[in-house]
């Protein structure tokens, strides 16, 4: 019954893993910034600066999740079908959080009233926090397994998914993404905002590190101290423990540290999952294995060709977008009649660019 996945199946498991890791390392800081909008930004100008740090990129970051979903559907249809129908209500909550979060960015700037903006800022905070928490809960369950019989149909209520291990997983991603977001802001903001982001990173990082070490030990023991999982867990733990130590000195290193911690955490979880797609907590004989869940090798080959052609293109323009929006933003960029566009022009030294207040009507919103 149990067969090892062949080369293409393993390759697609790895690629789907890469998509998840990409999603969490990128959207992880989006979630963090979203959570910090109210706490870190003290006035309108500061909150605008914060939202602007992720404004141009969050939508692209979310596509990593959609691609992970689509790739799972294409490469392992039974994995997709079993998981998505089995985690029905949990997934609905994730979707609801992502919908609210998405529109909160887009609607926030559309009306200039204080109440409107405060509402969407809170929506941003809560939905970002909820999504960050729920993804940890979900992944802990993916690895721990769910009640499932030999027909590979999950029978679990929402509350079956909220066991202590899963809740710990949720707290890990919540705190880790919060730290990651704060570290991102240390790179993308300046002045007081950057100082406050540093303070947040300082305070949350040790908590995240402690929770994550606990979670990884628990994971490794569940996996009967499987060597690969243990090694990866140690690496992830090292990365996250290193974070507080580099906090003082270099924000780039700190951001690199949380990026590595998130990546290694999920690589460890993926390693724990392999070669299963969906482990059964009822009986390990009922595990849904990758080899049983996969598409035909023809489909996997087609998908491999598509991925080989398009992934480099996607990575290239994504990197370019980050390069375009690399400038540090601060309160003064969004305060007064100056606008971000004027700031950029000022920065880039575009000759002859009119300042915002000249000529046309003054900005209605600051």
């Amino acid at each position, binding site marked *: 019954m149990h067969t090892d996945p062949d080369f293409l199946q393993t390759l697609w498991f790895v690629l789907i893993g890469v998509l998840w890791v990409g999603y969490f390392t990128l959207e992880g800081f989006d979630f963090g910034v979203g959570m910090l909008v109210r706490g870190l930004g003290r006035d309108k100008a500061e909150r*605008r600066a914060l939202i*602007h740090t992720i*404004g141009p*990129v969050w*939508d692209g970051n979310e*596509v990593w*999740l*959609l*691609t992970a*979903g*689509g*790739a*799972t*559907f*294409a*490469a*392992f*249809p*039974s994995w*997709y*079908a079993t*998981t*998505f*129908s*089995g985690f029905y*209500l949990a997934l*609905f909550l994730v*979707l609801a959080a*992502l*919908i609210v979060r*998405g*529109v909160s*960015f887009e*609607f926030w*700037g*559309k009306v200039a009233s204080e109440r409107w903006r405060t509402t969407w800022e809170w929506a941003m905070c809560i939905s970002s926090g909820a999504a960050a928490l729920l993804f940890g809960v979900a992944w802990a369950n993916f690895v721990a397994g769910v009640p499932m019989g030999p027909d590979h*149909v999950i029978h679990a209520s929402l509350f079956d998914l909220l066991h202590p291990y899963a809740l710990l997983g949720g707290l890990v991603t919540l705190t880790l993404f919060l730290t990651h977001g704060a570290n991102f802001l240390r790179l993308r903001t300046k002045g007081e905002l950057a100082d406050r982001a540093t303070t947040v990173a300082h305070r949350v990082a040790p908590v995240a590190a402690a929770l994550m070490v606990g979670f990884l030990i628990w994971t490794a023991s569940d996996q009967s101290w499987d060597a690969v999982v243990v090694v990866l867990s140690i690496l992830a733990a090292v990365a996250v423990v290193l974070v507080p130590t580099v906090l003082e000195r270099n924000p780039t290193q700190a951001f690199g540290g949380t990026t590595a911690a998130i990546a290694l955490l999920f690589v460890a979880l993926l390693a724990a999952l392999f070669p299963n797609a969906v482990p059964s907590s009822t009986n390990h004989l009922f595990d849904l294995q990758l080899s049983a869940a996969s*598409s*035909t090798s*023809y*489909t996997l080959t*087609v998908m491999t060709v*598509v991925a080989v052609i398009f*992934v480099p293109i996607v990575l290239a*323009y*994504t990197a370019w977008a980050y390069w*375009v*929006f690399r400038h540090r933003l601060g309160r003064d960029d969004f305060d007064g009649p100056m606008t*971000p*566009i*004027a700031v950029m022009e000022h920065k880039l030294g575009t000759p*002859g*660019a*009119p300042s*915002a207040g000249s*000529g*046309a009507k003054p*900005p*209605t*919103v600051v």
Partner: protein
Amino acid sequence: MTTLDLARTQFGVTTLFHFIFVPMSIGLAVFVALCQTLHYRTGREVYLRMTRFWGKFLLISMAIGVVTGIVQEFQFGMNWSLYSKYVGDIFGAPLAMEALIAFFLESTFIGLWIFGWGRLSPKLHLVTIWCVAIGTMISAYFILAANSWMQHPVGYAVNHVSHRAELKDIFAVLTNSTVLLAFPHTIFGAFATAAMLVVGICAFQLLRKRGGDVVARSMRLALPIGTVAVILTMIFGHFQGILMETQQPMKMASAEVLYNTKNGASFSIFATGSFTRFPGHLSADLRIPHALSILATASWNGKVDGIRQIQASEVTKHGPGNYTPILGVTYWTFRLMIGAATLMLLLMLAGFVFQRRKSLDRARWFQRLAIVGIFLPILANWTGWIFTEMGRQPWVVYGLLKTSAANSPNVASGDIIATLAGYILIYGVLIVIGGWLMFREIKHGPEPPPPPPAEGVLEELPLAPNPDLVLSY
């Protein structure tokens, strides 16, 4: 309601809601890209204000389209796990390609477009909006290829050991005759949707006596685009009808409630009857002679198969069962789609005539009708999809998998009701806010032209945008 009915309701509700914004975004992306291209080529400032004014509607529409699109991709697995397992080997591939090739493109470049004003060179900035427009169209192609496979499965073989359909030829799936017609039909429908929106919003400005240069230019651009787009949508729809007669004869017959096979079949314009699977007889039936034969077979006396004959042949092919869709739904959605498109065409042509006579700003009745006309493409888009999806019933994949064997066995009614209520609540809030935001922008109208440059300024000011915070955040 059974869990199956609930799952279908949920799919219908979420998909129709999502599909308000999809054609609007596709069409507006192209329209905005066109405005910006005109600005880039001519340097005329009015095109910049057009780009920014219509850009606001594009962004509101895309915001809602994107977030509701996430649900679309996930609900196959959530509510239709048996379907997903059965077709995943084939259906998943275009979906994954859509995400990788199209979603990344449009999402990354819309960010670059919004925040790239003044930061990217004008040429590069123009490229970003075209990337968005092209991304939305690529996305449409892949999802329509996936849907077309459900209408007309090709390039597959059924594996009787694993009980699923398996992909044998990806090129056959991507060049399915069904998608080759469905794609232009949908894309031109999207252009018509956006053009109608532009015309309607401009008409509102004219009705309020605010016809500036933005309104005049937008009308001049949108009316011909809209007219051509509606006509092309109809032409491709006609060819789809012919293809449907060979691929899904039952859908064609049930669009017409044609009970018995007939040569030189007439097209019914209006009929009354009960909305049951077999309404018995139709009363007050108004018909155009031979029109159905022309529509379905492109010949005066072409043979159109009737429901009874197709039902009988389906039973011999697939075993006992009911192979007839709900005729009241297929009949009326088909008519509403064609009716709405015809009204759109008439409105566009009327606008065209008024524009040639330079009397658009005085044509009060046209202005009022054009505002209501904004809803016509939404109606046509909706009924078109309801027709093509419900006309395929009882199949989810035509001839291969019945809808009744496709939903998730482990999802209880209570779960579907709870999530359905959740979606309706969230989507309801979204449509209210989105509609209100759009209405605010319509009421506010386009920006007035900037004041003439002060004396001593020799060259025109560079066309750096105003601090328009509605476009960015």
